[in-house]
């Protein structure tokens, strides 16, 4: 059974030949595997593809997380990249400006929506621009027969918050201007659907929607249900109807909202280390596959034995049908190669007791 098939099986809730292994390898880690700066890696489609494949080959995990939210960089965007002394500035087609430190991943410095009066002028990113789908096309062409390619779509809540308004402002908006917030969220859901459909047309195997701003440490379950859930659901349902398989990731102890998440239309839920996988399996395991959750902290600085114990705990709790082993979140910058090798090698070998 190859990696693609194995991952696919688990997504369906079936039992593959062994636990699929899919750590959340992000910009800082993949660029380091390739030995280039993170910003070079995200602003060059060819390097990006090379880095993704190099990392997958190096470790032998089962997926590739095609993690750019609005996909490949276009010629216009590339031209607008500004290299400063200690960081790089990257304006995006959504109007938000990203900053990429020389040794870290991108973050928004200038959110796009200064004022809700601009709401009706917001434009969808044009997914037909040359370069947009280049990374996905290349990944599929080069390794798509063997490896599961999972592409990111921007989660409405997170991107409305971080990219469009700035999270602090957005959280206030929720209480003060809920009607505008809902309009923005609805627009962002349309953006995600547009991007997801394009990915499905090109042939992506899976779709990842990460919603960390809706983390359980940040908003209450009630606010999750009012502001995040309806739009996650709108996106997941639309993409499901279009033939897509969606994974949703939210940080924090999402135990209280797992039953909601299971109703979004997502095929699989990714949880961080605050969630007890065994309990999650009991509550929603019959409806969705699960994905997670070896603590990124352990992978970053745990001993070999601690990393192995982390893997065992996950597989013993949730292994078998409908389970994919992953890190609890995106890997820490500076996670030693050796540690990730330990995780992947051991997870491939280990059988549930």
């Amino acid at each position, binding site marked *: 059974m190859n990696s693609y098939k194995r991952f696919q099986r688990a997504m369906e809730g079936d039992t593959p030949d062994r636990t699929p292994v899919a750590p959340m390898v992000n910009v800082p880690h993949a660029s380091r595997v390739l030995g280039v700066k993170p910003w070079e890696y995200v602003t060059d489609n060819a390097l990006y593809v090379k880095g993704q494949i190099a990392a997958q080959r190096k470790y032998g995990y089962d997926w590739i997380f095609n993690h750019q939210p609005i996909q490949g960089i276009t010629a216009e965007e590339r031209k607008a990249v500004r290299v400063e002394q200690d960081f790089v500035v990257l304006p995006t087609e959504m109007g938000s400006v990203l900053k990429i430190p020389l040794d870290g991943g991108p973050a928004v410095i200038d959110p796009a929506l200064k004022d809700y009066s601009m709401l009706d002028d917001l434009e969808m990113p044009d997914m037909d621009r040359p370069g947009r789908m280049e990374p996905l096309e290349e990944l599929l062409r080069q390794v798509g027969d063997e490896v599961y390619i999972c592409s990111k779509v921007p989660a409405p809540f997170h991107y409305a918050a971080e990219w469009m308004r700035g999270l602090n402002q957005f959280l206030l908006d929720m209480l003060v201007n809920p009607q505008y917030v809902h309009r923005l969220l609805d627009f962002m859901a349309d953006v995600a659907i547009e991007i997801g459909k394009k990915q499905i047309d090109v042939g992506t195997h899976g779709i990842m929607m990460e919603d960390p701003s809706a983390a359980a440490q940040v*908003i209450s379950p009630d606010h999750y249900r009012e502001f995040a859930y309806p739009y996650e659901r709108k996106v997941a349902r639309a993409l499901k109807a279009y033939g897509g398989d969606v994974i949703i990731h939210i940080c924090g102890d999402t135990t209280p909202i797992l039953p909601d998440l299971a109703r979004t239309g997502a095929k699989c839920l990714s949880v961080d280390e605050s969630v007890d996988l065994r309990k999650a399996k009991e509550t929603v395991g019959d409806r969705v596959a699960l994905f997670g959750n070896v603590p990124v902290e352990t992978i970053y*600085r745990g001993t070999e034995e601690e990393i192995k114990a982390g893997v065992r705990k996950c597989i013993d709790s949730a292994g078998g049908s409908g389970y994919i082993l992953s890190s609890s979140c995106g890997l820490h910058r500076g996670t030693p190669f050796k540690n990730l090798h330990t995780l992947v090698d051991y997870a491939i070998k280990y059988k549930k007791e």
Partner: protein
Amino acid sequence: MEIKEEVIKGGMEAIRPLIEEGLKKGRTAEDILAEMIEGMHEVGELFERKEYYVPETLLSAHTMMLGLEMLRPLLSVEKAAERGRVIVGAVESDIHDIGLNLVAMFLEAAGFEIYNLGRDVPTKVFLEKAEELDPDVVGVSAMMSTTALKVREVIEGFEKAGLRDGRFFVVGGAAFSEELADEIGADAYAQDAKKAVEVFQELMKRRK
């Protein structure tokens, strides 16, 4: 106690007329401020108990800020200076700023003179601001294991520049523990915004 209630509820619209009314009736600005601080204190408790999450807490803090703006011209300047001058920021490469902003607002609410440098602040900027403002306390936030270690660089930067003496460093954020704070040379650690206020007040007492 209406003012306190509005702070707790986050009544951004109601707070100003209520303060105006209070002042008209002859209450002092200090008295009204004390009532608002009491409200923020309760908000801190609600947050601790997970009855409030970040949005509710931010709204209360903003309500308090609106009130504070009205009162500031009426408060005696010495009082704020007495309570202490503080700069806070999240260390370079750390873009988590929710907790940082809450801490900044709680400190401001408690009467500190506060300068929030925001997230992703290079050591250089901490130093420039310290030179300019001569703060009593420097608060640094780091949410990740990687960035927590960078806080050591900030403190060392202050030492090298001769700006460390006579100043306290307080650190916080998910990556810290009491021990780690100690290890990197900080003077104190606080695990949440409410605790932060107590710690800062304690340090200011030590100073006198």
